C-alpha cells in the first residue's frame, strides 16, 4: 500500500513554450509506514508537481498512480474516493502560515477534520492532540493565530493537517524563512512524529545539510526526471551534483577543502559538526 507512481508524466500548456513537461516517466514507490524522505531539485525541476500527485490534487497526463489501492489516471474515475485519499495523504504547502484564517488556533486546526464528517467534540479532541504533537501546549487553543510568531504559525498550520491524522505527510519547504535554531526545532519535531507515530513523512527542501543529517532516503528531480532515489550519502559521493544545480553539505565541502589544501586523507563523509571534528582530530595528526 502507500503510493506507487507508474510511468507518470505531467504536461501543461504554457504560453512561453507550448507544452511544458513538468515531470516525466516517474516510477516511484512510497510505503505508508516509517519512511522519512527528502525531495530535492532546483527551482522548476518538478518537485511541487510531483508532490501534488501524491494526494491526487492533480492527475497525471500519462501513466498512472496507485494511492492506497485507488488507480489515478488522466481521466477522473467515479469509483475513486478522492476524499479518502486526501485524508490518508496530507499535503502542507509552502508558507502554510499565510493560510491560517480562523479567529482561534483551535478553530483553525478543527477546520480540516470537520470536513470529514466528525462531531465537534471529536474535532476538538483531535485539535488538542495535534497541537501537542507539534510541541505547543493547550494555552494556544484560544489564541488568535495572527498574533503568533512565524515559527508558531508554521506549527499551527502543520497541526491543522496532522489533526486529519494522515498516514503520509508531505511538506513543501517547511523550514524556509526560519532562522537556524527554528529550522532545527522543526526538523527534530518531524523526526519525532515519524518515530512516535510511524507516519511516513516526505519533505521538500533545498538544504543539503538537513538532507544529510536527517534523512535515509532522498529523491532528486532534474528537469522533471527522477534521477536519484537512495541514501543521501550515495548521492553526495557522486560528482554530478553540480550538474543538477545542487550543492554538497557543508561538512563535506569543508573537509574536502582541508584534504586539498593540506594534503590530508580525511574521510569527508561526516554528517555533523561533531563527527567532522572527530575526523579532523583522527586524520589531521593532532
Amino acid at each position, binding site marked *: 500500500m502507500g503510493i506507487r507512481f507508474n510511468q507518470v508524466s505531467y504536461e501543461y500548456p504554457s*504560453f*512561453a513554450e507550448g507544452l511544458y513537461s513538468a515531470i516525466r516517466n516517474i516510477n516511484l514507490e512510497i510505503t505508508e509506514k516509517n519512511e522519512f524522505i527528502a525531495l530535492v531539485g532546483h*527551482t522548476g525541476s518538478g518537485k511541487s508537481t510531483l508532490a501534488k500527485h501524491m494526494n491526487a490534487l492533480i492527475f497525471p497526463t500519462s501513466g498512472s498512480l496507485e494511492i492506497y489501492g485507488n488507480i489515478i489516471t488522466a481521466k477522473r474515475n467515479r469509483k475513486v474516493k478522492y476524499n479518502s485519499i486526501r485524508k490518508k495523504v496530507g499535503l502542507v504547502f509552502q508558507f502554510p502560515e499565510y493560510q491560517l484564517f480562523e479567529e482561534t488556533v483551535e478553530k483553525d486546526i478543527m477546520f480540516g477534520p470537520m470536513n470529514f464528517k466528525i462531531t465537534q467534540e471529536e474535532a476538538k479532541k483531535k485539535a488538542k492532540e495535534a497541537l501537542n504533537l507539534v510541541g505547543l501546549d493547550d494555552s494556544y487553543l484560544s489564541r488568535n493565530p495572527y498574533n503568533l510568531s*512565524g515559527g508558531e504559525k508554521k506549527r499551527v498550520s502543520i497541526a491543522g493537517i496532522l489533526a486529519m491524522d494522515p498516514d503520509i505527510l508531505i511538506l513543501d519547504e517547511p523550514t524556509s524563512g526560519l*532562522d*537556524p535554531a527554528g529550522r532545527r526545532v522543526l526538523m527534530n519535531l518531524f523526526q519525532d512524529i515519524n518515530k512516535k507515530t510511524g507516519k511516513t513523512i516526505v519533505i521538500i527542501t533545498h538544504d543539503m545539510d538537513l538532507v544529510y543529517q536527517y534523512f535515509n532516503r532522498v529523491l532528486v528531480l532534474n528537469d522533471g526526471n527522477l534521477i536519484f532515489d537512495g541514501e543521501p550519502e550515495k548521492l553526495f559521493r557522486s560528482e554530478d551534483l553540480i550538474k543538477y544545480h*545542487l*550543492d554538497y553539505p557543508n561538512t563535506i565541502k569543508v573537509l574536502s577543502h582541508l584534504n586539498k589544501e593540506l594534503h590530508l586523507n580525511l574521510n569527508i563523509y561526516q554528517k555533523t*559538526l561533531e563527527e567532522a571534528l572527530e575526523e579532523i582530530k583522527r586524520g*589531521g595528526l593532532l
Partner: protein
Amino acid sequence: MSYIEIRDLDFSYNGKKKVLESINLQVEKGEWIACLGHNGSGKSTLAKALVGLLEPELGEIEIDGLLLTEETAYEIRKKIGIVFQNPDNQFVGVTVRDDIAFGMENLCVPREEMIEKIDFYAKKVNMLDFLDKEPTNLSGGQKQQVAIAGILAMQSEIIIFDEATSMLDPFSREELIKYIRTLHKEGLTIIMITHDINEALLADKILVLNKGKIEAFEETEKIMKKREVFVESRLELPIALDLANALESNGNATKIRKKLWEYALTK
C-alpha cells in the same frame, strides 16, 4: 555625517512590546552590510523603517543628509529600493517591461527616457530577452533580477535585500549573490537581511540584531572571531569556524585552523 544615520530609534507595533529599541547605526556610502538575527529580532522592521513604510516611535533617520519625515519620505524612497523575500509578492506589471517601468512611471520619467532605461537595465540584469514575457513564466531568481532592474531604473543608490535569496534554489541564489557583488563594486550601498551565515560573510560589515537591539555591528572578519555574539543571539557560525574554534592551537591544529578560517572568509 554618515550616508545613513539612525539615531535612538524605537519602534513597536502596538505601543507595548518594543520591536526595535535604541538603535544607533551609521552606514557609509558604498558599504555592504549584512543583517543577521533570529526570527522576530526586528530585521524586517528596521528595513521598513528605513524606507519610511513604518514610522518610528522615537528617534530619527537621516539618509544622504535628508531627515526622514512625512514630507521627505517620497524623496528618500527614490534613493532606496527593497527586494523582498517572496518574488511573487512584488510583481505589479503584466509583462517584465511593465514591471520595470512601474517605478519610473510613478516618478514621471519622460516616455523616451523610460524606454531607453528599460532596455538598459533589463540588459544589465540579463533579462533583455524576457521583456515581453509574463512574470509568472519566470523562475524565482529571474523574478528577483527583474525587481532589481526596476529599482536600478529609478536610480536608487541603496538597495535592501530582505531575505531575497531564501526562497531560491542554490543555483539561482548564487546567481543573485554574484549580481549583488557587481552592484557593490559599482558603488551601490547594500543592506542584506539574511539567515544564511555564508551569505553574510560576503559583506563588509555584519549587523547582528537580537530581540530588537543591536548585539554587534562590526567588520565581518572581526565579528566572526566573537563566538559569544552568535551564541547570545541564537545564531550559528559557519561550520568551518565552529570547527576552527573547537580545535586547540598547537602544531598541526594551528595549520588546520588557519585553513578553516581562510575557507570561511574567502569571498
